[in-house]
């Protein structure tokens, strides 16, 4: 923070009416310009270095990954094949995709109508229900872990990913919250027009709201997908004793100790979990950032 304040402090002098210099204007302006970019570049180095090291290590030989070399002396592209051969990555990848895609689909089916009811319909108790949804979204999952685990055990579903997928059919609190924040911004005139034309509420939702809320729906789906992809606690709780149902994130955390696997393979597996997320992000960057912005409520 001081980093930002110090260079800006030098702009105290300029004539009152003149806007502050923005680019490299004058000597002090140049100093400020250089200082800001230097800090920014330092942050970039810190942000990228860990990622870079994951990638570099994933190409090393096992011995080298334990040494203090930064750069691979020989490039072992075969590590990526080994990860699939030795560590059963294919299965984990499939499990993760199953979890993420089904959960996201189920979430959309249940949460979009719920968000509509919470943003565009009027009914007794609406604010209260929304309050409960916010609480549900924020309560630590560990609070309800034990009762829910025992409950799912009744159905013999522990050991599978279904206890993580099925609840989404009954709405996901965070998604409902986010979708509602999007739908609130849609002007009522569109709804009124649809209603005057005699459209029922479901028709209004399908024909008016969903097309207009498409960026919001995209962002929410991505959040859900990312959440499932990253989820560690859920798979740990339900599938840890059943290796055939592990997800990527959980398997990744277990490799290192489990087989005494070398760091180079662990890092190759890490790259495999990161890449799909990065690809998805660069395709839908705008919707994603807009979604994050909406989670930070303006008071």
């Amino acid at each position, binding site marked *: 923070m001081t980093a930002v304040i110090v260079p800006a402090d030098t702009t*105290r002098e300029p004539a009152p009416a003149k806007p502050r210099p923005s680019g490299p204007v004058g000597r002090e302006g140049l100093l400020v310009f250089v200082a800001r970019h230097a800090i920014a570049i330092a942050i970039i180095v810190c*942000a990228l270095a860990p990622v870079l090291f994951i990638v570099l290590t994933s190409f090393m030989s096992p011995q080298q990954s334990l040494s203090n070399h930064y750069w691979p002396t020989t490039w072992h592209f075969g590590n990526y094949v080994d990860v699939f051969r030795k560590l059963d990555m294919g299965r984990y990848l499939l499990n993760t995709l199953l979890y993420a895609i089904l959960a996201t689909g189920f979430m959309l089916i249940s949460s979009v109508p719920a968000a509509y009811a919470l943003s565009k319909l009027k009914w007794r108790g609406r604010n209260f229900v929304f309050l409960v949804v916010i609480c549900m979204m924020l309560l*630590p999952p560990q609070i309800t872990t034990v009762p829910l685990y025992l409950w799912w055990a009744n159905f013999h579903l522990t050991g599978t990913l279904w206890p993580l997928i099925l609840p989404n059919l009954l709405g996901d609190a965070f998604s409902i919250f986010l979708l509602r924040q999007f739908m609130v911004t849609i002007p009522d005139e569109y709804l009124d027009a649809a209603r*005057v034309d005699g459209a029922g509420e479901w028709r209004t939702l399908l024909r008016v709201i969903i097309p207009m809320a498409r960026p919001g729906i995209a962002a929410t789906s991505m959040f859900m997908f990312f959440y499932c992809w990253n989820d560690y606690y859920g798979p740990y709780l339900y599938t840890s004793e059943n290796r055939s149902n592990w997800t990527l994130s959980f398997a*990744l955390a277990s490799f290192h100790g489990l087989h005494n696997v070398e760091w180079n393979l662990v890092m190759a597996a890490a790259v495999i979990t990161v890449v799909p997320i990065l690809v998805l992000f660069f395709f839908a960057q705008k919707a994603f950032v807009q979604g994050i912005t909406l989670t930070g409520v303006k008071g």
Partner: protein
Amino acid sequence: MSATDASARPGPPRPRRRASQSPGQPQGQGSPRSQGSPSADGAGPVSPTGRAVRRRPSWRRTLRRYLTVGSFIGPALLGIAIFLIFPLGTALESSMHKFGILDAPGTWYGLGNYRYLLHDPFVHTAAWNTLWFCLIMVPAQLVTGLGSALLLTKMRSASSLYRTIFFLPALVPTVAGVLAFVYLLKPGVGPVDTLLGKVGIEGPLWFNSPSWSKPSLVLLAMWSIGNTMVIFLAALLDVPSSLYEAASIDGASAVRQFRHVTLPTISPVLLFTTVINIIATLCLFTEAAVAAAAASGAATVGGGAASNFGYPQESTLTYPLYIYQTGFPQNLLGYANALAIVLFVVTCAVLAVLLRRFRSFTEGAS
């Protein structure tokens, strides 16, 4: 409050009524209406003219209305009942029992679990660790997030490139990020220690030292700050530039502008982000569990004796980790529920701060 108003006139004929009854109002339908909607709407039907024209709600119409609303919100209500209210009730009830996974109802134990909890040294350690994270990690996240967002607002050139790269670490899946940090901070031969060695500093043991394991997790949290940064960035860009112009005409320095213009304007977002980060820290699980497992080099799977939560020396044993540990590897389910109820009470206290500003969430609903 507004809920009762809404139910007083249950039918959907809102648009038609408005068209016939209040010709003066339709202009107000846009943004001004949507802001104070609950109170403004509530005042409408009470006025004598409104009462005269309003169509009588027949029970049939009311029922249909409720069925319509129910078809939208019903599944979510069922979800709240099954996945929030039922487990909370069960947790409270079974926290007063002594039982394991095989003798499910167990024996009545009264407040015994809670009494034991007060004297359990592991609870003290776990609660202290979690408190430590709330006191150090949350401010560190806020300062980093706000600092990098401020820097981005000052950048004129290449700012979108910087923004993307600053945000990038937030996209790295948590487990991969933790593993990367454990590798980077490997004592002795890790890249960071090697670098420090070249400058002549002997690096600490990081994740393998009881006094450095928590700061290492803070570094990790500061690294993946992207989401907080984006929220702050949006808030900063929303501060009207006229305020800055006025302040600089008055001769306010940049520091004073920040204190007297920026901070007050973004304070709601600041509060919101603080509360969210505190709650996220209260359920800190993945980072601590994975870091401990990876640094100790032992298996994480299945818990039991192999469990290495808290490595080294319980320094990363957070409260949620301890709940999990008592519940599953140790099979003390009643006790785990008691621990969970305590966490629930603490979380609710934090949430109360946020929900006092609940209006800001409901604002803008029609």
